[in-house]
């Protein structure tokens, strides 16, 4: 790791002010992605601004037809929250499936979505649950937040403060996980809001995307078998040592079926 100066602001305003003072500052969430990156010397920030002691970034509350989760809420806190388990159980179970116990004890919602790993789990929930990402300066619709592989709509220095998820009538997340890292080879989040069905796919492409054909099919006929005829194109999907693009395309349909079944 290259040397840096470490800061621990107590408010979002202080974090914003600190960022303005340094040449190449970087925000530190739970560190479960950033610290491994720094250890490999893949980045060389001048300053690390730890968001861990800012009360405004923490906590989970019911608000305006959904749940607001602070950016510095750890995966384990979402997984074990009584409110999340009651209001959007699929979100609690998604969080419980991230990485391992120790990663969940440190990693945060804000860090996960800002990192925008193509195989991360939370992006599927942000898109399927019609979320709104709140920052220090504006609100961004979940549909517009993820713009590419490891890319988001955030401006340099913009701090995510919370995410508001809308409560669906029913929802479920199914993932085919990499057995070593537990990241999603393919993960599909299905959410039903009245007559609208949203199907968000992570892991398969460079960034989370909605499967429009499946959404239309399920809006007509919400059964796993309705997806039997659905075909998913492998064009543009990720291919690596873990799975070819064709296999990922196949998994999208299988995970979508499992998610629909789990919706009950």
């Amino acid at each position: 790791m290259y040397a840096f100066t470490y800061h621990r602001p107590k408010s979002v305003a202080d974090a914003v002010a600190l960022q303005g003072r340094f040449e190449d500052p970087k925000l530190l969430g739970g560190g479960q992605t950033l610290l491994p990156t720094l250890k490999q010397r893949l980045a060389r920030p001048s300053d690390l601004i730890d968001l861990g002691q800012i009360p405004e970034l923490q906590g989970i509350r019911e608000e305006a037809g959904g749940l607001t989760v602070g950016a510095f809420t750890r995966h384990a806190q979402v997984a074990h929250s009584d409110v999340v388990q009651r209001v959007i159980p699929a979100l609690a179970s998604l969080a419980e499936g991230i990485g391992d116990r120790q990663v969940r004890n440190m990693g945060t919602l804000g860090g996960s979505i800002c990192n925008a790993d193509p195989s991360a789990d939370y992006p599927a929930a942000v898109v399927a649950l019609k979320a709104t990402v709140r920052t220090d300066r504006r609100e961004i619709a979940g549909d517009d937040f993820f713009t590419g592989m490891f890319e988001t709509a955030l401006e340099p220095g913009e701090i995510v403060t919370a995410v508001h998820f809308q409560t669906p009538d029913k929802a479920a997340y199914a993932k085919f996980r990499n057995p070593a890292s537990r990241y999603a080879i393919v993960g599909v989040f299905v959410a039903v809001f009245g007559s609208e069905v949203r199907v968000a796919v992570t892991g398969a492409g460079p960034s989370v995307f909605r499967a429009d054909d499946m959404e239309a099919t399920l809006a007509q006929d919400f059964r796993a078998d309705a997806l039997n005829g659905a075909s998913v194109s492998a064009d543009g999907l990720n291919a690596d040592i873990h799975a070819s693009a064709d296999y990922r395309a196949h998994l999208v349909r299988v995970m979508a079926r499992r998610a629909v079944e789990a919706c009950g």
Partner: protein
Amino acid sequence: MPCTVSMTVNGKAVSREVEERTLLVTFLRDQLGLTGTHVGCDTSQCGACVVHIDGRSVKSCTMLAAQADGAAVTTIEGLAAADGTLHPMQAAFREHHGLQCGFCTPGMVMSAVDLVTANPSPSEHEVREGLEGNICRCTGYHNIVKAVMAGAEAMQGGTLKAAAE
């Protein structure tokens, strides 16, 4: 630039000057001499470095010492009683042959104690899931799982079940 970090480690208050980029595991091993916490992979995968921060298990190779400022840290050295009596989970690992070379053991035991504290009577499946962040190259895990199940019972106040063999 050096900074001062202060925390409680195994019940004792410590305060030291460290470089800001110092990892918690480096601080524990090199500065405090607590070499029971191991470094296996250094890439957040193996769990040999697991310690407790305010009761929660974390990988100390993926945390800065500065992030632990003000926290209560427990390492494997802090589990046994002052007179050397092993913690029930440590005793269970010994009784059930939950180790061979022993390299992964400190992390396994620390993860197991966190897991059982949160879920006092876990099923075998829950134990296996709870240890996903810990890799062992020797045992094939079966005896580790048996040890954790027996350790869980003993932590609830039961007597430690003897190994089957």
